[in-house]
C-alpha cells in the first residue's frame, strides 16, 4: 500500500474548507428556526467527512477536535440535545478554529494552540452539561460496562466482511491507527482464505485478532473502526489486570515496514505543504458543462475531418463547400470558446456566502438588528474575478453595517423599523456583472463629507460640486471614513483601497445615497478578464486594440470643434463638453499618416470617469481578442494593458485607457514646463 497520500491532501483541504462553509451556513440557518433534522444532518455529515479525512491523513489534532464537535452534533441529531443558541455560537467558533487549524496545517504554520484548547474546552463543557449520558462517545449499542481503571488493554477481534475493499476501506490503515493508541500485538486469521484459484483480488478474506495494551478508552478504539462498523464483525473485550500477562500475541505487527510507509507519507506531506503555499487552485465544474464541451469537441473533429477530406484533392468547384466548412469551423470554435469560458464561471454565491456569518457576528456584538437579503446569488462570473472581489465586497458590507445602519433606538426614533436591512444584489447587464450593496441606514451626509474634504485639502472651499461628485470624494485616498459618515469609529481603511481593487479588475464603483433613507454602492465588473471585445485602430503602420467597453463614440472632427488651451494641450468640444485630445502617435512616437486633426478620426473613450478623444488615423475591424501578458516575458508598459495575437499571427497591443490618460497628462505637463523655461 505505497500510495503517496500527499497527492490527495490538496483535495482534502479543499473539500474540508467547503465542508466548513457548509457547516457555517447551515449553523446560521439553525439560528433562525428550530432544529430541522435535515439541517443538523448536513452539518453532521460535513463534520464527519472532515474527521474521517483528517484521520486518514494523520492530522490528528484536527480529527480529535472534530470528534468532539461531531459527538455534540450526534446528540442533536438523535434529538437528545436541543440546539441552544449557546451551543450554536460555540459550534460556529469551532468552525473558525477548524478553519484556522486546516489553514495552518496546509501552509505549514504553527497551530494556535491556546485558541484551539479554549474552544475545545468550551465544547467539552457544553457536552458535559445537560447531556443525558456523558459517555456518548461510545456508540449506544455497546455501553461501557467495565470499570475503566482496571482495564489494562483490549482484545479486539476484527473480521472484515469480504466486501470491505469495495467501500474503499483499508484494514492496514485501521491497524496503523490502532497502533498509535498503545502497544499492539496482532495475529492474523487466514482461516477464511480460499484456495488460490478461487481467490478474488477484490475481496477481503483476512481477519485479525489484536491485543492492545495500554490505558485506552473504548471510545477511541471504536472510533478507529467507525468507518467500517457495518462491514465487519467486531468484538472488543477488555483485558483485566491479572490476565494481561497471560495472553501473548504470537506475531507482532510488521512494524518496521509499516513505519517506513507512514514515515514516507509524512515527508511527502511536508513537501506538498511547502510547495502548495503558493496560489494553486482547482475548480469544480458541473458535469453538464464538461459534457457540452465534449459535444462541441466532437463537432469540431467532424468539421476538421470534413475539411481535410475536402483538401485531399481540391477542385475549385468545391469552393462553396470549403467556405461552408470554414463557417462551420468558425461557429464550432466560437461555441467552444464560450463553453470553455463558462467553465471558469462560478455563481457569485461563493463570494456572498461569507456575509450571513459576518452580519450574524456583527449584530451580536454591536446590538444592531440586521436582516441580510441576498438576491441573484446564481449570477455567474469568472473565478479570478470572484477571488479578487471578495475583500472589497466585505469591506463595503462592513461599511454599511458600521456606518450605514443605525442602532435600533435611533431607527425607532426616526420612524423606521427596528430591523435594519442590507441587500446584496447581483445581476448581469451587457457584458458586465453588477453587484449592489444597498442599506436602509442613515445615508451619506454630504455636508460632513464636504467639510472634511475641504479640511483635507481635497477640494477648494466654495467649490461647486454635484451631489454625486461629493459622494465620490469618500473614495479618494486619505479620506478616512471615520467620524465623518457616522460617529462609530472606522477601522481606518479607506474606500480608496476598495476602489483600487475594483479598478484592478477593470471595474467601476458608484455611490448614490439619500439622507435618512440609505445608500447604494454599485460595482460593475467585466464578466471575464481573459477575453475582451476590441476595436482595432490604426496609427500609421501600427495597429492597436481599444477595449470596446471604453469607447463612447468615434467622430470626425470639424475645424470649429477644435480649441487649444494653454498648458492643457488640445481640446475639442463635443455637445457642450470640452474634452482633451490625445494624439496616439505622439504618445507612442509613431509615424502618423495624418497630422491635421480634421483629417484623421477621433475615438472618444472613457477611463476612470474621464473622457478624452484619441486621435488615430483609421478605424479597422472589431473583434474579440484573447489577452496575453507582456509582463510574462518582458515588463509592464505604461498605456498598454497587454497584447493579443491577431488572425494573421502578428501581435497587436491593447491600450490601457486610464494609463494612457495619465501618460498624456504627464506629457502635457512636461511640455508646458519646458516651453515656459524656454
Amino acid at each position: 500500500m505505497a500510495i503517496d497520500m500527499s497527492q490527495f491532501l490538496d483535495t482534502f483541504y479543499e473539500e474540508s474548507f467547503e465542508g466548513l462553509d457548509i457547516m457555517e451556513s447551515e449553523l446560521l440557518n439553525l439560528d433562525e428556526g428550530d432544529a430541522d433534522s435535515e439541517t443538523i444532518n448536513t452539518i453532521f455529515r460535513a463534520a464527519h467527512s472532515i474527521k474521517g479525512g483528517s484521520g486518514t491523513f494523520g492530522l490528528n489534532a484536527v480529527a480529535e477536535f472534530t470528534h468532539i464537535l461531531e459527538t455534540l452534533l450526534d446528540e442533536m441529531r438523535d434529538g437528545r440535545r436541543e440546539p441552544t443558541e449557546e451551543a450554536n455560537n460555540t459550534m460556529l467558533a469551532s468552525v473558525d478554529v477548524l478553519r484556522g487549524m486546516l489553514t495552518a496545517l496546509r501552509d505549514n504554520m504553527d497551530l494556535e494552540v491556546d485558541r484551539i484548547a479554549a474552544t475545545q474546552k468550551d465544547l467539552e463543557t457544553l457536552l458535559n452539561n445537560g447531556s443525558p449520558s456523558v459517555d456518548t462517545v461510545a456508540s449506544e449499542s455497546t455501553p461501557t460496562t467495565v470499570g475503566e481503571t482496571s482495564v489494562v488493554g483490549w482484545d479486539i477481534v476484527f473480521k472484515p466482511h469480504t466486501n470491505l475493499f469495495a467501500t474503499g476501506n483499508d484494514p492496514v490503515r485501521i491497524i496503523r491507527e490502532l497502533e498509535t493508541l498503545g502497544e499492539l500485538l496482532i495475529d492474523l486469521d487466514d482461516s477464511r482464505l480460499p484456495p488460490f484459484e478461487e481467490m478474488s483480488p477484490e475481496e477481503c478474506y483476512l481477519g485479525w485478532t489484536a491485543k492492545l495494551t495500554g490505558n485506552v478508552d473504548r471510545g477511541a478504539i471504536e472510533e478507529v473502526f467507525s468507518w467500517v462498523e457495518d462491514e465487519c464483525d467486531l468484538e472488543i473485550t477488555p483485558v483485566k489486570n491479572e490476565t494481561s500477562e497471560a495472553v501473548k500475541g504470537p506475531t507482532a505487527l510488521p512494524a518496521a515496514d509499516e513505519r517506513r510507509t507512514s514515515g514516507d507519507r509524512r515527508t511527502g506531506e511536508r513537501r506538498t505543504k511547502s510547495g502548495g503555499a503558493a496560489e494553486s487552485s482547482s475548480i469544480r465544474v458541473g458535469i453538464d458543462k464538461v459534457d457540452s464541451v465534449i459535444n462541441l469537441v466532437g463537432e469540431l473533429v467532424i468539421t476538421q475531418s470534413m475539411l481535410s477530406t475536402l483538401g485531399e484533392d481540391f477542385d475549385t468547384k468545391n469552393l462553396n463547400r470549403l467556405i461552408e466548412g470554414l463557417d462551420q469551423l468558425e461557429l464550432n470554435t466560437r461555441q467552444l470558446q464560450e463553453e470553455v469560458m463558462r467553465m471558469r464561471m462560478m455563481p457569485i454565491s461563493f463570494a456572498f456566502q461569507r456575509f450571513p456569518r459576518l452580519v450574524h457576528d456583527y449584530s451580536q456584538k454591536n446590538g444592531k438588528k440586521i436582516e441580510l437579503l441576498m438576491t441573484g446569488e446564481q449570477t455567474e462570473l469568472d473565478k479570478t474575478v470572484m477571488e479578487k472581489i471578495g475583500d472589497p465586497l466585505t469591506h463595503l458590507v462592513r461599511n454599511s453595517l458600521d456606518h450605514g445602519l443605525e442602532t435600533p433606538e435611533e431607527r425607532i426614533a426616526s420612524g423606521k423599523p427596528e430591523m435594519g436591512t442590507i441587500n446584496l444584489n447581483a445581476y448581469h447587464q451587457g457584458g458586465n456583472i453588477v453587484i449592489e450593496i444597498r442599506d436602509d441606514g442613515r445615508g451619506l451626509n454630504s455636508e460632513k463629507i464636504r467639510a472634511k474634504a475641504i479640511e483635507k485639502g481635497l477640494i477648494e472651499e466654495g467649490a461647486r460640486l454635484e451631489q454625486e461628485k461629493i459622494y465620490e470624494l469618500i473614495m479618494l485616498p486619505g479620506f478616512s471614513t471615520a467620524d465623518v459618515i457616522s460617529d462609530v469609529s472606522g477601522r481606518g481603511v479607506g474606500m480608496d483601497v476598495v476602489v483600487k481593487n475594483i479598478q484592478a479588475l477593470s471595474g467601476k464603483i458608484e455611490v448614490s445615497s439619500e439622507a435618512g433613507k440609505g445608500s447604494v454602492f454599485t460595482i460593475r465588473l467585466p464578466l471575464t478578464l481573459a477575453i475582451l471585445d476590441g476595436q482595432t485602430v490604426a496609427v500609421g503602420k501600427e495597429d492597436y486594440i481599444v477595449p470596446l467597453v471604453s469607447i463612447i463614440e468615434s467622430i470626425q472632427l470639424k475645424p470649429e470643434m477644435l480649441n487649444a488651451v494653454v498648458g492643457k494641450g488640445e481640446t475639442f468640444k463635443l455637445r457642450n463638453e470640452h474634452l482633451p485630445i490625445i494624439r496616439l502617435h505622439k504618445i507612442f512616437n509613431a509615424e502618423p499618416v495624418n497630422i491635421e486633426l480634421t483629417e484623421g478620426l477621433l475615438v472618444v473613450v472613457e477611463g476612470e470617469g474621464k473622457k478624452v478623444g484619441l486621435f488615430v488615423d483609421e478605424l479597422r475591424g472589431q473583434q474579440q481578442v484573447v489577452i496575453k501578458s507582456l509582463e510574462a516575458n518582458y515588463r509592464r508598459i505604461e498605456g498598454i494593458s497587454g497584447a493579443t495575437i491577431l488572425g494573421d499571427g502578428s501581435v497587436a497591443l491593447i491600450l490601457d485607457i486610464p494609463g494612457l490618460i495619465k501618460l498624456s497628462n504627464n506629457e502635457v505637463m512636461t511640455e508646458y514646463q519646458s516651453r515656459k523655461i524656454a
Partner: protein
Amino acid sequence: MSTATSEQAVSAAGEATHNSIGVDSSGSQYLTFALAGESYGVDILRVQEIKGWTPVTRIPNTPEYMQGVLNLRGTIVPIVDMRMRFSLETADYTEITVIIVLSVKNENGDRVIGLVVDSVSDVVNVDSTNIKPTPDFGSSVNTDFLNGLATTDDRMVMLLDVDKLMSEDEMTAMASVGEAADAVPDVAAQSD
C-alpha cells in the same frame, strides 16, 4: 544574478553534454553567432530555437534596441537587437538575419527573449580552462554581459551571460515605471 550561479549553470551544462555527447567533462557547448564581424557565444542549453527574422510589433516608449514583440506559438516574446544593445553600427535585416530564442532567468523567474543577430555560425566545444576573464576594454565597451573570452580553433568567442541581458537595465526600468505609476495620485473623482 550572481556569477556563482552562472558558473554553476555552466558546470551543469558541462555535465549534461558530457553525459549525452561525451565531450570533455570540464567544457560545455556554445552556439556562436556573428555580430558586426565579431563572434559571440551563448550557452547552447539556453537556446530554445533559431528562426529567421520576421517583422515584429513595436512597443512604444521602450529603448531603441527593444525591437518589439513577436508571437512565438502563442507566447509574446520580446526581441532585442544585439547590435543596438551593444551600441554597434546598425545594419539592415537580410535573409540571413536570425533571431535566437533563449530562455533567461532572473529574480522574477524564467523568461523567453529573442536576440537579433547577423547570422548563426556553429556550435563549439569550449574547455573551461580556455575561458579567460574579460579584459577591461575601457569605458567604450560594456563588458557586463560577458562571462569571459574563449579561444577555439584560433578564433576568439565572447561568451554572453544571457541572464544579465534581461535583468539589470530592463528591470530597473520596470521598477521605476511601477513606482511612477503608484506615485500618480488617484484623481478619478477629483473635480476640475
